[in-house]
């Protein structure tokens, strides 16, 4: 298997009147062909900013301040706009949350889809229109020919989401970045869409970053997982290893929070995620962590390999595993 995308030391900041918001604080990530990599994090963990950072689409006041994103020998953060635009959409597809607001409300979806297809290679209008119908069929939209003329407001959330996915997949991208692709959808529709992404990834030999806050989706659809907290990866592992041995105290709390059977006095984390404009010194979890030691307030722990392929950013756990 070969690495398709390799991210090193990605840092993204927001420079505003409130000061400097450190949203992403040195992320290393990579994904192989035909792999689905799950990225889990709660609000404010930086997960959506990372999605836009991967394709160099961070909007001001956000700014990528360092890092490399290597894609097939090229650094997307240093690529000229023209060639970036060719790569985005054609080779890298992006699925965002809230498909309805991402679609243009004034243009029928068939034309939006055909425009995207033409922008990414197909010159002939008729061929683009035919391809649009084929894609709508592929994502399981009933009566695709009729749907071509619908405007986004006439679609249900599930159908609009599928149109977005059809658009992202229309150019057979090598890499798919899906940011909460099913949030706000009912579970039966969610299952259909995730199965679709799964099949298409394996059919097209592409790779996917699946960003979500739902551990169930990660467990069922991904090969490996990276857990984000305050713009840092705090644990990374193959999915089976992670769910059997969650090691970081934050990961343990996350897994406990989705338990189905009642546990008396289960230990969750007190408090809330830190403010990115005012991150605590040392380990960002230290104000909430049940294992906290003096060193956690002083030094940022490094990401340590505790077993092959299993990385954890925690002073206490790193000591225990040695």
């Amino acid at each position, binding site marked *: 298997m070969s690495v398709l995308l390799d991210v090193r030391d990605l840092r993204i900041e927001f420079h505003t009147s409130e000061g400097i918001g450190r949203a992403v604080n040195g992320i290393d990530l990579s994904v192989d062909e035909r792999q689905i990599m799950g990225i889990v994090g709660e609000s404010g963990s930086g997960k959506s900013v990372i999605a836009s950072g991967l394709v160099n689409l961070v909007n001001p006041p956000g700014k990528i301040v360092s890092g490399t994103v290597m894609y097939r020998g090229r650094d997307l953060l240093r690529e000229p706009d023209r060639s970036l635009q060719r790569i985005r959409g054609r080779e890298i597809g992006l699925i965002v949350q809230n498909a309805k607001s991402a679609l243009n409300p004034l243009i029928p979806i068939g034309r939006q889809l055909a425009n995207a297809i033409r922008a990414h290679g197909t010159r002939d209008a008729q061929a683009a229109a035919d391809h649009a119908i084929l894609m709508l069929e592929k994502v399981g939209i009933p009566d695709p020919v009729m749907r071509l003329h619908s405007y986004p407001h006439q679609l249900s959330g599930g159908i609009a989401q599928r149109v977005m996915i059809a658009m992202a997949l229309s150019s057979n991208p090598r890499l798919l970045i899906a940011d909460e692709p099913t949030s706000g959808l009912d*579970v039966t529709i969610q299952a259909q869409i995730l199965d679709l992404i799964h099949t298409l990834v394996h059919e097209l030999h592409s790779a996917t970053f699946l960003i979500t806050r739902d551990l169930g989706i990660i467990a069922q659809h991904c090969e490996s997982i990276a857990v984000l907290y305050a713009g840092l990866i705090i644990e990374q592992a193959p999915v089976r290893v992670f769910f059997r041995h969650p090691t970081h105290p934050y990961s343990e709390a996350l897994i406990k929070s989705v338990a189905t059977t009642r546990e008396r006095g289960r230990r969750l984390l007190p408090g809330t995620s830190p403010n990115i404009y005012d991150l605590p010194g040392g380990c960002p979890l230290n104000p909430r962590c049940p294992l906290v030691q003096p060193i956690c307030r002083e030094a940022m722990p490094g990401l340590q390999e505790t077993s092959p392929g299993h990385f954890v950013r925690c002073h206490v756990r790193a000591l225990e595993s040695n």
Partner: protein
Amino acid sequence: MVPIVRVEHLVKHFSIARSTKALQAVNDVSFSIAPGETLGLVGESGSGKTTVGRCVLRLIEPTGGRILFEDRDLTSLSQESLRVLRPRLQLVFQEPFDSLDPQMTVGQILAEPLRLHTRLTSAERRDRVFELLELVGLRRQLTEYYPHQMSAGQQQRVGIARAIATRPSFIVLDEPVSSLDPTARAEIIDLLIDLQERLSIAYLFISHDLTTVRYLSTWVAVMYLGKIVEMSPTEELFEQPSHPYTRALLSAVPVPDPEVKRPKYVLEGEIPSPINLPSGCHLHTRCPAAIAACRTTTPEEVQVGEAHWVACIRAHELRAQQAWEKQSFPPLAV
């Protein structure tokens, strides 16, 4: 136990402008809830679950049926006599921020129901506000805060504190944790359980999230297109889902454990419009187990276990088949 809330044959239709048709949101729904227990009402968008919650509190007028609260029929009460009962019937909303007045401090928000519904002096009200904050696990200093200065989890704690301020015996929880992150969600669920045990409040917990429903509920009722299709004690429902719709819902929930693979049980397409309901069993257009009779027969409720009802003409047959499947292909679990 004598139920505190009994809903009998509840119907709610909304009329549609310039049309003779009606949107049939709720069609003949009945259930009861005992003091200190939780009924989880689950279903997807358009199932009518939120409408049921609003009708039960008479925030909207039911089209038909009765709602008995401690044996008094709420549907026949005047607004004035309903107002006297209001403190005992409360509601917690889905979006904590939207449900709190942005111009009021937490202290003012919590004192308001006390001002409206009790005769407490202002000093007593202040003490009660502190007591409420403690009950929901918030610091006293928060009385001076405005909603936007708090996290979503803290806002929802305030929403819950406001609901319990007047010592209700019944609370409708309408998706109270759906907009929260997983860790905050778990904390709020634990808080709701804790309050229920201490104050013995009955909950109607409306949610599309089966994991939290399982964690919180004593009983579960599953709704599809305005009808309850299955109702049973919680664990029984999750262990032996007997309506094809319940099975499909459960199989669609991604289990947070990569070692467990649920058997696939997929419904075709999307939920039909409640304006043009399908004939017979409303699920027949999507149901993998549908037979010809499902198109014409309206299914009666069948009892399949102790206190376990299913509205499906093939219920017994499918349960037998499922039991066989379970024996032959046990679910993969470690």
